[in-house]
């Protein structure tokens, strides 16, 4: 009886917490939307207690973009979570997780509404802490713990660097107080920095906070932490927490340290392009579904940085202000878009994992027929992330592409020369992403099941289905209304000094004097109309269609083993980029002589994780060596190390104040 009661109580707590979350996030989202639309914030909202603004906090258009993204995905996640928590075993209990989640959401909101560096940094640290707990929520296997530690360590090292950047700006002030760390004061200080100091601030901010954003080569924690976390946490991690990294980079480097020199725009473009390309390339080689999605986060962060970087680089070119605004808007819009479709994909991946308990694509197959809702929603997400019209990914990618093409008209030689390469790079990224998602959808969801688990897959319950459907719908709506969304996002440039010169005559058509014209709405309408017409015209033949075994050259029947595997699907691409991947294969070949007949032959292909091998491994061993030197007075255990960083952080803060 008591057990039953306890379970009912737990369930009730989880559900009511979810409802509260939905309400709170709805408020935050409305707030963000209002802010972007240029209206005053409504009387109750974030960064307010009642009608009073909390000191050191406040929403501006840049933060509003992330807040809006958080609301968009937080609500479906809240709907998704209860059923997910009910269905799993072990790990943190449901109520505890459900209690941690609002805390995490709160700290995220604190980060994006902070108007004071101290608030920002405290919020940031708390966000990291809560996120770590939630990453650990689902298990205590070594790999999960390792992932969490990697996340914490990298996050903290990054934070330290970022903090130094903030402190450099603040160091111009005669006194350090809470008020002197207000953004307003920092902006004034920032304006007077010397070129060298500014450069140091920009680079430190990018490296420090960019770690959280997962820019290459600081991305290595992402593919470890995402698969380890429960899927809705992965969704939040990729959807918003990573974006907070971008947000803080933009805030510190582009806002507080203004005016931003031109070269930093180019740096951002370079970082963006390399993250985009490397992210998608590693994603292609992945056959762990969640790791694959995590690598795509790296890619999309890259795209976002490209947009922001182009905005920065063009903002100083006369005559191209509207293009700069478009580029920035595209980048910020992509923050929202990526949040939406990545959350969608992670939730769907979670649903798949919940039913077949596997993340390996090679063990899946035929899931669309077993899980039509989840499969279809995943397809929408896959189409969106691949930039397929008329979904939201298309709108932001297309806008960025147009901005890049238009920037070839810049009088600035660098940008003009780089623009076509960037166009090609972005196109390559898009094409690779499409190839990757053809794989990520096609291999697990189509064809025949490749394992017993996959054969017995079942559709998830109503809650998760609704959450997924909501996000899929959001992909569509954001795509169709992208001109409107772009105009709103352009306002996010205001705090960065990239003024929103973007106006479209219609909320459905993107056009301008320097860019081409497109209309996801018209495309959607036309493609849908023709599809419907054709579908209706040919419905008779489909209704009469005969179901038959696939053609296997006259053999009895097709076997699952005859389907392409995930790794085989991208083999050709792997070979082209072999210098990057360094693919190798372990073969246990034929036994015995002569070699003409074989008895047993086992093979396993792999790629070399270049960054881990050549960047981090030496680093780690160097640290180990230093730690060994210090063996006499400090324990080298990771936990203590963690503790020490926290202490160092607190000391630094205290000293700063």
């Amino acid at each position, binding site marked *: 009886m008591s057990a039953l009661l306890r379970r009912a109580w737990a369930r009730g707590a989880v559900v009511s917490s979810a409802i509260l979350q939905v309400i709170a996030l709805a408020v935050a989202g409305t707030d963000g939307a209002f802010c972007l639309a240029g209206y005053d914030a409504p009387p109750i909202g974030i960064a307010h207690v009642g009608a009073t603004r909390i000191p050191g906090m406040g929403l501006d258009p840049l933060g509003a973009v992330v807040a809006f993204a958080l609301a968009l995905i937080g609500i479906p996640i809240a709907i998704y979570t209860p059923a997910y928590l009910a269905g799993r075993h072990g790990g943190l209990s449901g109520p505890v997780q459900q209690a941690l989640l609002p805390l995490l959401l709160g700290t995220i909101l604190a980060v994006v509404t902070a108007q004071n560096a101290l608030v920002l940094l405290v919020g940031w640290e708390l966000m990291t802490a809560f996120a770590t707990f939630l990453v650990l929520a689902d298990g205590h296997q070594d790999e999960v713990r390792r992932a969490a530690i990697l996340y914490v360590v990298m996050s903290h090292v990054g934070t330290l660097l970022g903090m130094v950047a903030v402190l450099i700006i603040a160091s111009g002030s005669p006194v350090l107080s809470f008020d002197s760390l207000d953004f307003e004061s920092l902006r004034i200080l920032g304006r007077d920095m010397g070129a060298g100091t500014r450069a140091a601030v920009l680079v430190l901010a990018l490296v420090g906070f960019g770690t959280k954003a997962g820019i290459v080569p600081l991305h290595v924690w992402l593919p470890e932490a995402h698969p380890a976390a429960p899927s809705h946490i992965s969704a939040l991690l990729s959807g918003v927490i990573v974006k907070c990294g971008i947000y803080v980079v933009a805030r510190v480097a582009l806002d507080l340290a203004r005016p931003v020199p031109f070269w930093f725009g180019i740096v951002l473009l370079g970082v963006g392009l390399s993250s985009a390309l490397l992210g998608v390339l590693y994603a292609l080689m992945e056959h762990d579904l969640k790791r694959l999605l995590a690598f795509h986060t790296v890619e999309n962060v890259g795209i976002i940085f490209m947009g922001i970087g182009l905005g920065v680089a063009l903002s100083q070119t006369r005559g191209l202000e509207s293009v700069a605004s478009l580029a920035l808007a595209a980048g910020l819009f992509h923050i929202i878009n990526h949040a939406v479709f990545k959350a969608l994909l992670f939730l769907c991946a979670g649903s798949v994992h919940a039913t077949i308990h596997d993340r390996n694509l090679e063990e899946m197959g035929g899931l669309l027929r077993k899980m039509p809702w989840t499969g279809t929603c995943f397809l929408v997400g896959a189409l969106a992330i691949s930039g397929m019209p008329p979904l939201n990914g298309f709108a932001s990618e297309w806008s960025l592409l147009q901005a890049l093409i238009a920037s070839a008209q810049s009088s600035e030689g660098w940008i003009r020369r780089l623009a076509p390469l960037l166009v090609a790079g972005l196109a390559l990224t898009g094409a690779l992403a499409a190839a990757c998602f053809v794989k990520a959808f096609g291999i697990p969801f189509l064809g025949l099941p490749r394992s017993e688990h996959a054969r017995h897959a079942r559709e998830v319950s109503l809650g998760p289905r609704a959450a997924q459907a909501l996000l899929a719908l959001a992909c569509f709506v954001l795509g169709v209304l992208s001109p409107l969304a772009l105009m709103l996002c352009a306002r996010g440039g205001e705090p960065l000094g990239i003024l929103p010169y973007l106006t479209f005559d219609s909320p459905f058509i993107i056009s301008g004097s320097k860019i081409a014209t497109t209309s996801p709405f018209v495309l959607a309408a036309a493609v849908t109309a023709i599809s419907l017409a054709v579908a209706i015209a040919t419905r008779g033949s489909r209704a009469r269609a005969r179901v038959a075994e696939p053609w296997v050259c006259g053999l009895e029947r097709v076997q699952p083993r005859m389907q392409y595997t995930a790794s085989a*699907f991208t083999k050709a691409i792997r070979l082209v980029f072999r210098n990057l991947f360094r693919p190798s294969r372990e073969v246990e070949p034929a036994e*015995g002589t002569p070699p003409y007949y074989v008895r047993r032959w086992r093979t396993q292909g792999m790629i070399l994780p270049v960054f881990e091998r050549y960047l981090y491994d030496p680093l780690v061993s160097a640290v180990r060596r230093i730690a060994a030197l210090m063996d006499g007075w400090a324990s080298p255990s990771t936990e203590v190390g963690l503790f020490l960083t926290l202490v160092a952080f607190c000391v630094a803060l205290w000293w700063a104040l």
Partner: protein
Amino acid sequence: MSPAPLETRNAQAVPIADVPDLGDEEFRDAILTAVSLGSRVSALFGHPAGEGKLRLFCVLANDELGSLALLSRQVERRFMSLANDCPGVHLFEREIFEQWGVEPHGHPWLKPVRFQPPLVAAGARASQIGVANFFRVEGEEVHEVAVGPVHAGVIEPGHFRFQCHGEDVFHLEISLGYQHRGVERALAGGPDKRTIHYIETLAGDTTIGHAVAHCETLEALAGAEAPARAHAIRGIALELERLANHTGDLGALANDVGYLPTASYCGRLRGDFLNMTAAICGSRFGRGLVRPGGVAFDVEPARSAELQGRLARAMRDIRGATGLLWETPSVMARFEETGTVTRETCEKLGFVGVAARACGVGRDARQDFPLGMFRFSQVPVMTWHTGDVFARAFVRALEVESSGKFIDGQLKALPAGPVLAALPERAPDRIVATLVEGWRGEVCHVALTDERGRFSRYKVVDPSFHNWTGLALALRGQQISDFPLCNKSFNLSYCGHDL
């Protein structure tokens, strides 16, 4: 000292009793010794010896000496497999197992050859075709590609099972038998009115090759010889068959790499050569031409003159058409270093015909074991050393040239006389092995007669039987999209293998 194998010559009938009957070890040693001295196994087959026993006959061919050797041994349920030491016999041993239920002990890869019903009444049929246990390369990323028996092109049925990773082929297993019509079984007890038709349809594109081998066999058993004019016409027909098929193959190779000019010209020229055969006998494949005792159709002077003219024109055109292949870099890029078979593999497994000559092995029965017209008029052996698709294409092109010269020479100097002679009775209790160089390679017919001179066993070894393994090996580590090209470069017979 064990009894030596019986030395004999091509198409020479000898009493079965003269063939030494060896013990297990002796049989094995004799074959291994001979192979180490340069011989290869042309045929190895079983023949029921009564009392539940099976007598294995082995035909060893020594290309350098031009001699054949026969040996045999009696087995009951099993015998020591030779396949590990002499890989060339692995298919023969599997065949023996399938036909007679006698197990080659220690065979590394004992699978059905053609899924045929056993020749012994009590034997159980092998497993169902197409659902066999195919070799699997393990590893989660490996997948299979199954092709056949119904292929995309207009070709014979066979099943190919690739173990792949994307474009890469780890392993190819070839499973044949779809064409099995039971010809060898039906040939026993002959010759009768259907025999020559069985022979002519063993492999439809090698009608002349098999028919010549068969007729030489019968003539040897009868102790007679066909007239000289018939030999010349047989030679012409044999080389026309080679011309037509080689030309067709070159065109097909061009077609497989999507190179249209040569593909279309060769497609047409192949027809021209076939039509020249039809001009001689009315059938494009030479059906009804070669008959025991000679040939059924004469080539009159007028016909010969016309043929010479047609040949000259076709030869000029084929030179132009094939020349394009070697001069087009995009074609050569596809041909070179594709589907390579090393000379060592070739020698170990005993490939024959174009496949062997393209590995640099100068093996050609027209030169090594000449019969008929080839005793008097020699055709040079064409080889190339690279063992790849290019080599097999290039050797074909060279042979087209030399065959054209041979035909032209024969047409200009046809011996006078009749074309058909009546054959005397066949000798009883004889064995005869005949090797003829068909266009694919060595066609081997072995006939054993009973006490009335009828066939108690008629064994046919199509050149394809030796070479199929070569195709499987050529594909290892290749790209799967090159398979059609490799396959065409070997162009092996399915029905010749499946009989």
